[in-house]
């Protein structure tokens, strides 16, 4: 039978495809509806947080940091309560990572402050002696891309019904409203920072990447 099949490339290919596709069908498809439900009270990211998430992705922080706390005592002692599926309902893409060259960050907002992040991103060894993390000084001078973040928020609102602007959920509003809100959020963070260039930029109405990133870090609970 196999020899017969090997002389018929088309049927052979169909056979191979069916055998390959089988697992995906059984393993991936059935759970989709269930796994994407958010836990109660979960809020979509604000514009500033989402812009910070883009900074996180741009510099591939996920190459070294996970956002997934496994259900072991050694992990919950170190990082906080273990992660549950509904917490990730608004994460597109997911950022679990696959390697912990640095510690997990899923609940970093619980135990680090704006001030700590500012020092750490400027010079990691200043707060963690022995750290092998690079410094990310360019985040203090480059501006975050609010417009693309807004485009993404609006897209997920329209296409995937993410509950922006619904009662009790994060307000997004029009581009002007959203920008204004993001700048206000940025001012609160800048007020807790000490880098004068960053403070000046925010006062001018700009949002340096570091401010957005810290907003995102602080949102991780």
């Amino acid at each position, binding site marked *: 039978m196999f*020899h017969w099949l090997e002389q018929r490339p088309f049927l052979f290919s169909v056979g191979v495809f069916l055998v390959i596709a089988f697992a*995906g069908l059984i393993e991936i498809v059935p759970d989709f509806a269930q*796994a994407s439900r958010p836990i109660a009270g979960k809020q979509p990211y604000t514009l500033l947080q989402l812009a910070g998430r883009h900074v996180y992705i741009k510099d591939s922080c996920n190459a070294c940091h996970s956002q997934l706390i496994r259900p072991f005592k050694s992990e919950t002692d170190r990082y906080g309560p273990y992660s549950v599926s509904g917490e990730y309902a608004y*994460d597109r893409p997911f950022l679990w990572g696959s390697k912990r060259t*640095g510690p997990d960050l899923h609940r970093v907002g619980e135990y680090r402050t704006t001030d700590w992040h500012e020092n750490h991103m400027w010079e990691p060894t200043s707060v963690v002696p022995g750290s092998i993390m690079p410094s990310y000084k360019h985040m203090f001078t480059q501006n975050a891309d609010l417009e*693309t973040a807004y485009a993404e928020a609006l897209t997920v609102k329209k296409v995937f019904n993410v509950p922006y602007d619904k009662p009790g959920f994060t307000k997004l509003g029009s581009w002007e409203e959203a920008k204004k809100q993001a700048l206000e959020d940025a001012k609160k963070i800048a007020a807790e920072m000490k880098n004068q260039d960053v403070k000046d930029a925010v006062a001018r109405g700009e949002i340096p990447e570091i401010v957005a990133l810290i907003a995102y870090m602080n949102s991780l609970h």
Partner: protein
Amino acid sequence: MQNAALEYDYTVAKWFTYLAIIFGIVGMVIGTYIAFELAFPGLNELFGQYGTFSRLRPLHTNVVAFGFTLSGIFATFYYVGQRTLKVSIAESKFVHGVAKLHFWLYFILAACLVVSELLGITTSKEYAEMEWPMDVLTVVVWVLWGMAMFGLIGMRREKTLYISMWYYIATFLGVAMLYLFNNMEVPTYLVTGMGKWYHSVSMYAGTNDALVQWWYGHNAVAFVFTVPIIAMIYYYLPKESGQPVFSYKLSLLSFWGLMFVYLWAGSHHLIYSTVPDWMQTMGSIFSVVLILPSWGSAINMLLTMKGEWNQLKESPLIKFMVLASTFYMLSTLEGPIQSIKSVNALAHFTDWIPGHVHDGTLGWVAFMIIAGTLHMAPRFYKREIYSKKLMEMQFWIQTTGIVLYFSSMWIAGITQGMMWRAVDQYGNLAYSFIDTVTVLHPYYTIRGIGGFLFVIGLFMWAYNFFKTMTSDKVLDKEPAFASPMGA
């Protein structure tokens, strides 16, 4: 039926071979550099934001997987395909044109990938970092490859598909399916008319996204690092040694077994995550089952050398291939071990994982591509391979490099995993996270040295290959089996 030997056209095979050599060197130089960054963090500062570990790590993985390995796969396909189907690609202007277009579009895509990774334009999904415009181009490139493949098959004189062709067809189909599903994304500019035109957002959220990503991520490994490499060894080892494949039945069992089992194993990347328990268990179990078809192929290859083991001593090309199938066995035993839940609890997130990846990719994938290209060189140029001695040296230097790499990462990974969970007599965590980082310095250094040795070997490979092109020992006819080599 004509009985004269066919003249095959190797134009496209040669182009892809040059690209494999270039991307191999670029990708692994970057890899070695970032390996040393972990040991000596000061290196992160040398190229501003473009030189940090985090920017370069996806660049490294993409260049070696989709630059080096895919080029190697295409190069060997355009060689093995013609020969096992008994048809010259030049017999059809159309198919030949498609193959050439395949090359050039692939080259443009790879160049875009390098630039975009450096600029930080990424979707963040591992091995699927490209944004949507490049995803579209990827689909075009892939379809062109399929057209060339089935074009050749349509023209074939040999009716029965040889084992290597099974695996190339499976590569084409498997990657196509996985890639399409994992890269489903919505371009934000097209929906809103705002922001960067190339930005997109994933169709899947959170746990679902993770599930699809690792279904893809693991099986991209399967269909780029395993399936087409098996295609290579099924052709080059019997051809170089002059030995028939040990068992047809074993190759059948291994092929269909591999196709059926591999896709289930993806969820072993998500053990103790938030995906449902039964999926984690399935991933774990099927990973262990995967030993059977994997070892089936490897044993089939090793037994092909039965009674001819003297060739292992005499030919560096045979050495490369026999060690490749041995590393394949090691790697496909190690992976299932890491997939067992209790082992995974320790190994996941640690350096044992990159260690495992590299004994597969360096020992198996790179060795097979190197062996394939050096087997083809005398047939491409009708000249003797420039230097056997250089190949011998390359073999031993690179083997040493691989051993340093994976042994240091085993120790590093298990050390770190144990330290993360260690508690004192009161049940409190014994180490802060940074303790588990600084302890790794010696292992990171050794790993860097291992990578450096491997890169030296790559330069020897490139030198040997390009010297063969102009070597003055011209062959009057194509060698039937063992490749002739100069001193």
